[in-house]
């Protein structure tokens, strides 16, 4: 499809501004003016609408396709929450209003949402308090690591090391490293859980924290989880819960009760706010009581009389993680989602997420290798090891599935499973959809046995076939540019004027 720049026709526009009702002022002066206008597309509103409508049709999405992308929790996004986020009382509210004198009373609704959401998340996870500020899951991890650093610093000790298992999400070690920590990686044992011996051996005075996902990225709930948190605590370390996989355990266990000190939640995963093609998400961080003092400012509090206010007086706080109170519109959608599901709905969501994943695993295990264990939580990890011996890689199976109208599972993750395919069906998918997907997976396995060559041209139903990614990375083309001489530069708005001077 043509780029929108390639549809551009000089002097066309898709926007109308109000007629100027104030006098035109003297230009700002050549010293401050840009040399020529930005080469933005010159297109009509219909051009824009048609362009983006057609682009949208070149996408797989939850609303079009089964999207079992492991560790991403691509569940159905209820539509009514979009309506709520668009309510003028929320979407039109300037974030600085409550920071003005007398502004608190004008933003009570927004503060109430944040306050109530904090209380709900505390109850769901068993933590003492939450900050809503982190703008994505990985941003929450970074916040958590900073809280850990502040905690140790406050105790007057310097610890430089963070432990992660080799099955962890890549964001865990990256967040720890970016906050200034050394990362120590622990191997996964034959049971799919962190190797306890290596874990115990790695304990030292230098260990600031352990970062864990539970259930982990292999879909396995570690039965020794309490033992792990106890051991870490005995060494003076904190334990961080990566909440990306919380969809497996709502109402079944809580990180706080398991001994975790910090947790981040991905509201765009567990609480069904749309992923938006890669964001915005929201990654609130919950902490146990000994870490509350370090939470970012501001915090939403409630006066005995019921009014909400922002508290800035936190001398031990790590400071500002985000400019305001988090991705408010995302938090709002998640809040509405929790209200509509209620207690039983949340529990059921986890139950059926786990049911669906186990169903997929059980029906596929005779066709694909299962990485670990006979039972999984909300996601299962299969391996295309058997198929790859015939020359059919996990990537080829992914492309086969695209032609069948399914978004592929996550592939090549976790890194410790060869030819990994990580399937997370979520609770909102019906048995019919799962059966169709399973049939397609079985067909792929059979075709791999019979005729491996068939895979190599797939997918054939998409706007492009397989992309040459190596070439794209080598010969970088990251930005459209007007071809030389295609259009003359427009005169600068201020070119003819002398430099403006003030007092």
């Amino acid at each position, binding site marked *: 499809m043509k780029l929108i720049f390639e549809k551009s026709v000089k002097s066309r526009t898709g926007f109308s501004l109000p007629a100027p009702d104030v006098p035109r002022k003297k230009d700002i002066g050549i010293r401050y003016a840009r040399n020529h206008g930005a080469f*933005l597309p010159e297109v009509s509103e219909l051009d824009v609408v048609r362009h983006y409508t057609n682009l949208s049709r070149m*996408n797989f999405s939850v609303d079009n396709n089964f999207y079992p992308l492991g560790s991403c929790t691509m569940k159905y996004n209820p539509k009514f929450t979009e309506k709520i986020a668009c309510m003028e009382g929320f979407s039109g509210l300037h974030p600085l209003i409550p920071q003005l004198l007398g502004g608190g009373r004008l933003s009570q609704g927004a503060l109430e949402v944040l306050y109530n959401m904090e209380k709900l998340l505390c109850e769901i996870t068993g933590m003492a308090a939450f900050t809503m500020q982190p703008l994505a899951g990985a941003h929450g991890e970074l916040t958590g690591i900073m809280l850990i650093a502040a905690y140790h610093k406050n105790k007057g000790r310097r610890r430089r090391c963070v432990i992660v298992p080799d099955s962890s999400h890549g964001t865990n070690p990256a967040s720890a490293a970016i906050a200034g920590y050394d990362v120590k990686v622990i191997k996964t044992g034959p049971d799919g859980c962190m190797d306890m011996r290596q874990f115990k051996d790695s304990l030292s005075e230098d260990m600031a924290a352990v970062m864990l996902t539970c259930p982990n990225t292999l879909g396995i709930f570690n039965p020794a989880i309490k033992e792990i948190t106890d051991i870490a605590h005995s060494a003076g370390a904190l334990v961080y819960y990566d909440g990306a996989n919380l969809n497996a355990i709502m109402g079944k266990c809580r990180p706080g009760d398991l001994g975790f000190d910090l947790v981040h939640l991905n509201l765009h995963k567990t609480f069904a706010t749309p992923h938006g093609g890669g964001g915005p998400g929201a990654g609130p961080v919950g902490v146990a009581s000994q870490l509350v003092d370090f939470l970012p400012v501001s915090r939403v509090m409630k006066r005995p009389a019921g009014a909400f206010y922002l508290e800035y007086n936190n001398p031990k706080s790590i400071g500002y993680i985000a400019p305001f109170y988090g991705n408010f519109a995302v938090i709002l959608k998640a809040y509405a989602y929790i*209200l509509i599901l209620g207690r039983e709905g949340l529990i059921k969501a986890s139950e059926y997420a786990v049911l669906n994943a186990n169903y997929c695993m059980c029906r596929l295990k005779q066709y694909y290798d299962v990485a670990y264990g006979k039972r999984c939580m909300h996601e299962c990890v299969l391996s295309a090891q058997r198929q790859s011996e015939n020359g059919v890689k996990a990537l080829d199976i992914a492309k086969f599935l695209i032609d069948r109208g399914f978004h592929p599972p996550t592939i090549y993750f976790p890194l410790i499973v060869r030819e990994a395919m990580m399937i997370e069906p979520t609770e909102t998918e019906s048995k019919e959809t799962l059966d169709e997907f399973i049939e397609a997976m079985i067909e792929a396995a059979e075709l791999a046995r019979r005729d491996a060559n068939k895979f190599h041209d797939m997918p054939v139903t998409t706007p492009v076939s397989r992309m040459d990614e190596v070439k794209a990375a080598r010969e970088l083309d990251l930005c459209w540019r007007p071809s030389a001489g295609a259009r003359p530069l427009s005169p600068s708005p201020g070119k003819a004027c002398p430099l403006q001077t003030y007092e």
Partner: protein
Amino acid sequence: MNYIPHTEEQTRQMLEAIGVSSIDELFDGIKPELRPKSFNIPQSLSEQEVISRLSRIAQKNIVSLKNFLGAGFYDHYIPAAVDMMAGRSEFYTAYTPYQAECSQGWLQAIYEYQSMICQLTGMDCANSSLYDGGTAIYEAAMMAIRATGRTKIIMDSGLNMIYRTMLYTYMSNLNIEFVETPVIHGQSCREEIFRYLDEKTAAVVTQNPNFFGAVDDHSDIAQKAHSVGALSIISVYPVSLGMLKTPAEMGADIATGEGQSLGMPLSFGGPYLGFIACKQALTRKMPGRIVGAGTDREGRRGFVLTLQAREQHIRRERATSNICSNEALCALRAGIYLSLLGKTGMEELARLNYDKCEYAKDCVEKIPGLKVKRSSPTFNEFTIALPRNADVVVEKMIDKGFAPGFPLGKFYKGMNNYLLVAVTEKRTKEDIEQFVQALEKVL
């Protein structure tokens, strides 16, 4: 209400296929002693009940104030087509486009967004979005530290205080030296910047227009930074780039900014959009996702996520950043917004914002005892010195139906009587005149 489609019969069939007798059995790995101590969540509500409850809560927020409050976050008009197009669920219910063939729509939209940011800023390469304007400055500073191997950052205090505070938080555990230089008569103090600029400096960070709305030309700062091997990072307000000198024209190596003005509602602080763009030489140091154009097997043009080897899912603790989710949907909104406005629309929008603000300045200045700070040209935001405490004036103005601006004493010492006033294209001549009348009355 829940969104689970299973019938009892289907659930039974599935349990049978798994070989368990109940759903509970699937959780028997979680021993009784690990079960929740409590789970007191309210009972489910209907969609109708949730909508009406939240509609009541929304009404507790005021949106009827005439808004002259900016401070980095502006009340611009959003064309309806932005909401409609970004509201297409093929966009908003997709995930990161890992599988290129079935995500060409998203990938092309991001490539176009990157191109528009490059066109606006004059830079060579942009990524597919960051969380917000503040984290964009942080990522830019980290890029400069990686690129130069140095650890000193000079920050102009004309940079939004919120962002400066964020930077301190983010870098508090790293071995980084910060120097903050003052603003003199609304502009960056060269003398102080140059005094601290040396061979240890990784970058000088400035903002244009700065927090006071003052417009400057930072070419000399960039040049001086380069002369000692440091980088120039300039944070810009994208609407101003419809008319103002670009960061590239000033010689910046990295440009960042808050993209909220490009089609994002204010939404009480988010989601917003951080943009970052850099010179060619720094491309591979750029954090986050980047979309590149390339060809498929048949030689057709297509788009892919590129340079992924820098990213956390592959490089883990050696990645250039920990970014996974970004603000792609906001980038899409910005792309649609910039397409609708186009080249001339952006020029006219900037001009209209500029003219309205200049008109407001002229009107406000007629109020006795009040002084407009005019030591620099400004773009759609300006500083006034009031004869009394700005907080009190703000409170009285709210009663008269205005969000009159941001009291600078909150962020700057000794500026308790100063108010930062923003005027966008949404404020009519009449709004401005009523604002001035109200202000005159409360003083």
